[in-house]
């Protein structure tokens, strides 16, 4: 088997950097684990350790209202002997990052971004090669911070990336299985199912392998997805000694938002300020808003299902109940696949500068609020608004660029001209 030297170099250097950060600065992992930008109530490594402690001492981890993560994670981490827990988990998280990159490289090599079944971009020549895309992910400071902070959302990210990479390599079964794992771990990837089925279908139809109509196809794989999830839930039920308690404290927390620890998202502040009588209504509205994008995007960008998935990941990083840096890093990992539409984007510099500013000001305002006591919650909330403004700028701008790219194929005479709404 030919080993790509550049790939080895990339993996090696990324691993070395992470090992250096883990072991040369022993206080760094704990510092990052405590940051609200990295650890949310549903992904925090500290809470995982707490749950693990209870689990190994035969107390139900879901009793206390602290632990909100899936039972499978518990049994996975319970396998690690406690004497070498910390170095082994570091290695596990480094390995996860490398797995993510492996999947990302496969997606990049499939060239689905440049030409899907229904659409081939005229700009597809302009792209980064897969190793560069992998490097952009591995050396992204957000990814590194996430890896060192060890939130369990890395598992979800990895599963999502594998679901996509299997989909583009024409293996719908494994793809759906991976997505099932992702949504079992943190629920929201459920919304990626429709575009993922479209992606699987397109990929197979392109190679003339598929004989089913798309409706039957999607029914088949949706039921398979449901089966996967039922299987995972049943497994969890066995692992937690036959109790269904975990359902309400994992998915219930995601859905109903009882824990209002500050994070980078937009939900916590709203629900802190809201009168209790409106709570149910607005929970419905917020979830509906999040889910509403799926249908619209699937229909509008039907020709490029991969881009639908990427944009949805960006939207999740903004609007999901407990977003963290790891969601942003996943979005930024996928975005370079559409390198060819970057020249069509209009506000890249502005958006990136906004995000950089928010990255600096966020911790500063958090410090003023929590430690110095001279600021208040509004400071931090204001900066999360700025952060999300920057992100939504990028999401909207990339969507514009892709639509523009499609439009220029339809109407070549309009190339390079301004669009106007009539």
């Amino acid at each position, binding site marked *: 088997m030919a080993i790509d030297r550049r790939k080895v170099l990339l993996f090696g250097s990324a691993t070395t950097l992470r090992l250096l950060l883990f072991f040369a600065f022993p206080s760094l992992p704990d510092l990052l684990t405590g940051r609200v930008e990295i650890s949310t109530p549903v992904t925090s490594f500290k809470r995982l350790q707490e749950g693990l402690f209870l689990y190994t001492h035969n107390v139900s981890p879901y009793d206390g209202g602290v632990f909100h993560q899936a039972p499978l994670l518990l049994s996975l981490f319970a396998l690690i002997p406690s004497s070498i827990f910390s170095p082994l988990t570091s290695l596990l998280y480094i390995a996860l990052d490398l797995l993510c990159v492996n999947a990302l490289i496969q997606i990049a090599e499939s060239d689905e971004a440049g030409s899907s079944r229904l659409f081939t971009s005229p700009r597809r020549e302009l792209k980064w090669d897969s190793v560069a895309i992998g490097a952009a992910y591995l050396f992204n400071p957000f990814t590194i911070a996430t890896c060192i902070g060890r939130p369990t959302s890395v598992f979800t990210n990895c599963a999502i990336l594998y679901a996509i990479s299997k989909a583009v390599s024409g293996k719908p079964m494994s793809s759906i299985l991976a997505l099932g794992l992702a949504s079992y771990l943190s629920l929201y990837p459920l919304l990626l199912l429709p575009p993922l089925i479209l992606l699987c279908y397109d990929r197979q139809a392109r190679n003339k392998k598929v004989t089913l109509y798309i409706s039957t196809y999607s029914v088949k794989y949706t039921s398979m997805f449901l089966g996967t999830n039922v299987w995972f839930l049943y497994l969890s039920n066995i692992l937690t000694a036959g109790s269904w308690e975990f359902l309400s404290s994992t998915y219930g927390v995601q859905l109903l938002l009882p824990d209002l620890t500050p994070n980078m998202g937009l939900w916590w502040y709203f629900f802190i300020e809201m009168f209790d009588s409106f709570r149910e209504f607005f929970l419905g509205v917020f979830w509906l808003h999040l889910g509403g994008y799926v249908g619209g995007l699937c229909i509008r960008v039907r020709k490029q299902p991969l881009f639908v998935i990427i944009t949805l990941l960006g939207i999740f990083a903004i609007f999901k109940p407990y977003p963290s840096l790891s969601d942003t890093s996943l979005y930024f990992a996928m975005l370079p696949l559409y390198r060819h539409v970057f020249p069509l984007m209009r506000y890249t510099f*502005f958006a990136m500068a906004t995000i*950089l500013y928010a990255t600096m*000001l966020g911790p500063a305002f958090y410090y003023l609020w929590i430690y110095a*006591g*001279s600021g208040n919650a509004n400071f931090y909330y204001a900066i999360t608004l700025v952060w999300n403004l920057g992100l939504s700028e990028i999401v909207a701008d990339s969507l514009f660029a892709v639509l523009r790219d499609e439009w220029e194929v339809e109407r070549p005479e309009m190339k390079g001209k301004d669009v106007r709404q009539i």
Partner: protein
Amino acid sequence: MDGELNQNGVALTLELARYFKRWSLWSKDIIILITADSRAGPQAWVDAYHDEHISPYVAPLPIKSGALQGVVVVDNALDHHFESIHIVYDGINGQLPNLDLFNTAVSIASGQLGMRVALQRMWKHDDSYRERLQTMLRGMVRQGLGHSSGPHSSFIPYHVDAITLQAVGEGGQDDMAMGRCIESIFRSLNNLLEHFHQSFFFYLLMQADRFVSIGTYLPSAMLVAVNFTIMAIALWIRSGRPPAPKVATTMREKGSKPDVDIIQKDGMAAIMPKETTTILERQMFVPVSLAVSLHFLGVIPLYMFNHCSFETLPYYFLLFTAVNLVLPTVLAAFIHHQTSLTAQQYLLLHSFSLLLLGMFLATLATLNFSLSLFVGLLSAPLSFIGNSFSGSVEPKDVFPSQRRKIISTVALQLVSPPVVILAVCYFWGTNVGEMLVEAAFGWKVNGLWMQVIIWCVWWPAWLAGSVLVSPAL
């Protein structure tokens, strides 16, 4: 404070302790802390109180009594009656105590007891514009340096409001007056069971009863910081422009029309050469990696000035100053040797360096206004190096002329961080060694991060600017 024995202060504190015991109205514990050293001592105690101490150097403190409400430091080293009270209020890293605590102390001392109140060592304050300005500037310098200004400074980072009352001058006030003043402040703290809420933490004092609020002063620092961002955006836009069309030659060639664009807006149309509306692809790898690596270079002086011994510190500093004189030229020659920067990369490097500087300063302005303002003002020339205000991207317009390069280099060398530090030391008549020791002490003991700002924000930005105008590039 000031290296004198706090004899009367300690005596008065012990006497007050006896007096306080007789009263039953205190709704809290009163802790009396007497330390041998006026700066490391309180820091060690407050660290241990919050279990944040570094274990082998500071012993733990097992007995605690809840969150600290406020701290009043009594400092009276005089062996005669004093004239007025000097209130010191600056905390570490330019953080300030709640203005209400300060106001309480001022109104008790001057209103009830009729003592004069001084601040920032302005012993004679006649409420003139000049005096107010001087008080404010002294406060800003102290805030900018952010070092410990008294025993109270160590408490402020833990969100404990703290001030020092220092007896100064020769006059008619005796220990009795000081004791009454402290007792009244304690009773006022007593009334505020709830923490001071919704009051000022960001202020600049001009006089004991006049202050400038954040809404008034913050815009200045923000404008200074934003100037770098605006410049960065301008340079970014400029870097995306393709080189200007050679109008003279294309017109002469028959049959080849210049590429034009018709731009319509509000019913009007304009014909523009194609080149002005299209955007070039930017080559960003070299400028981004240069800007980032220059910032990582800042770790070297930071480490050097915090880890070498007390005796060698001034020599290292002089060595660093000397190296710093030639460093931009060496770096520029090195970069030139490796890869010759195109006009676009030149603009982008300038843009990214300014963007980072603007971003750091804007963040800093919310934490330590004065430091941000001073660093911003001192690095303002960085916006104007190169041919900043031309829109052209021709190499001859982008790269400054040799004469301009030399002038800019000299100008930048005059505002380089080591030169500024030397100048400040000369101006204040302090020894460079003492200054550096003070900074290193603050870094180790108090968690002072002024040095981080100087070496990892200001110096890299300056270095990037100097490399850009270096004649060797």
